[in-house]
């Protein structure tokens, strides 16, 4: 079991959600975040004072899947959200120790 964390551009979220549904991924958790990678910030001016915008709004999508599904999910995410422009984001894959579905008590594979 693995957790896939994808940091993506906010306007790509709907596309990602639709693509996941198509490949059989049945759930996800989404958080609004800010961040930056290697892209430098840019300068704006507010009432005559300059400031650097380094933190860019992003969306973090967390999906837990069976290990066999990881490659398919990662490739689908990349294909769906890639724009080719700077700031497309990153995907992290982490191991999951155990899972529990709270309502039914199902664990691990049954709880995915």
């Amino acid at each position, binding site marked *: 079991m693995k957790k896939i964390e994808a940091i993506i551009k906010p306007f790509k979220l709907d596309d990602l959600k639709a693509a996941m549904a198509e490949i059989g991924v049945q759930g996800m958790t989404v958080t609004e975040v800010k961040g930056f990678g290697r892209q430098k910030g840019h300068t*704006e*001016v*507010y*009432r*005559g*004072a*300059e*400031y650097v915008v380094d933190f860019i709004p992003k969306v973090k999508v967390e999906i837990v899947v069976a290990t066999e599904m990881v490659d398919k999910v990662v490739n689908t995410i990349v294909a769906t959200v890639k724009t080719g422009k700077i700031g497309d984001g990153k995907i992290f894959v982490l191991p999951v120790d155990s899972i529990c579905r709270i309502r039914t008590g199902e664990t691990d594979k049954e709880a995915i």
Partner: protein
Amino acid sequence: MNRSIAKKMCLPLTMAMVAVAGTAMAAEGAAEITGAAAAYVVNNTWMLVATFLVFIMHLGFATLETGLTRAKNTVNILFKNTAIVAIGLLTYAVIGFNLMYPGDFSIPGIFGFSGFGIGVSPENMMVAGKDGVGIYTYWTDFIFQAMFAATAATIVSGAVAERVKLHSFLIFSMIYVALVYPWVGSWKWGKGWLDAMGFYDFAGSTLVHSVGGWAALAGVILLGPRLGKYVGNTIKPIMGHNMPLATIGAFLLWLGWFGFNGGSVLSADPALVSFVFVTTSLAAAAGIVGASGLSWMIQKKPDLSMALNGALAGLVGITAGADVVSVMGSVVIGLIAGGLVVASVMIFDRLKLDDPVGALSVHLVCGIWGTLAVGIFSAAHSFTTQLIGVAAYGVTCFVAAFIIFYLLKVTIGIRVDAEEEMKGLDVGEHGMEAYAGFEIKNV
């Protein structure tokens, strides 16, 4: 009879009853309504409309200041604006009105006071204009002017926002609006020495806006800038958290200005009031253009908050002479005011005078500009006299405000401590949030 017949008979029946009653009244010799009496009613009604238009400016200030400051201080801003209306109206009833319009001056032209309290039943209910026609009642006079007093006080609240101690601010406002505002106002509107000299301030570029502006300047100097605003030689912008509210505020203020300037005609004179509406609005429009243009050039992208400040700058600028300058004059005055507000926002920042909402730039700088502009754009008024008036108010108001703030500073303190400033005054001064349930992540 059935319902539809009854309904059809209703209107004709009512009209018949009114006709009979009317004839009966005429037969009793009911008083004729003279033209002068009708004019009195119209004049007074307009003045009361103008009164509630000026009143709505308090909502304008509240929303504008809220929009241009941070969410963690919103309750504090709203509370200050609410309290000031109360302080303004009540002190004006107890002291201000009779200090501003004393009738007789005990120190000729400079100081007069016709007693505490606005009275139970005034000797002369009707205040008449030059031709003897009634323009408004005693009560209208009081409440209209009282609304002005409160707006002068509220100008300070924006400039000192986000770091002033609530109780110190309330004490300052009480003293300033009860004593200083009406006293210096008597010099012109109360028929004091500046009025005798020919100084002209139609609706208060000096008497309201710069009086508030000088006090704001004293406050800004003695308070110091917000934490993190000036780091070394860099100016760090502190963004307003709600542009829609700021916009609502600016437009409510413009709406109120129809009463602020329109009501300063002190009658419903069709030609004068309508002319003032035109000059007032054109100046606001030109202010938007001037400010937007200059900020677009300097900042490379048009800044909404500067555009809004521009409208207000134009409005403040035209306030001294809305009735005596030409249409073209009002446009030029507004345009220059718009440019001045943008330039002065940036200059004040470079002088390390932190003004979160641009109150100094809008009210002080453009209040002075508007007053001097009367001397430039109206042949009937002298630039030198205007300058003398500006200087007299400047020295008196700045020194008075400085003294009050300074005494408060060395006794009870005027600024919240650093930890409270970081957490926000809503929690620190009021123990509540403005947006309970929303998570606002910016500090």
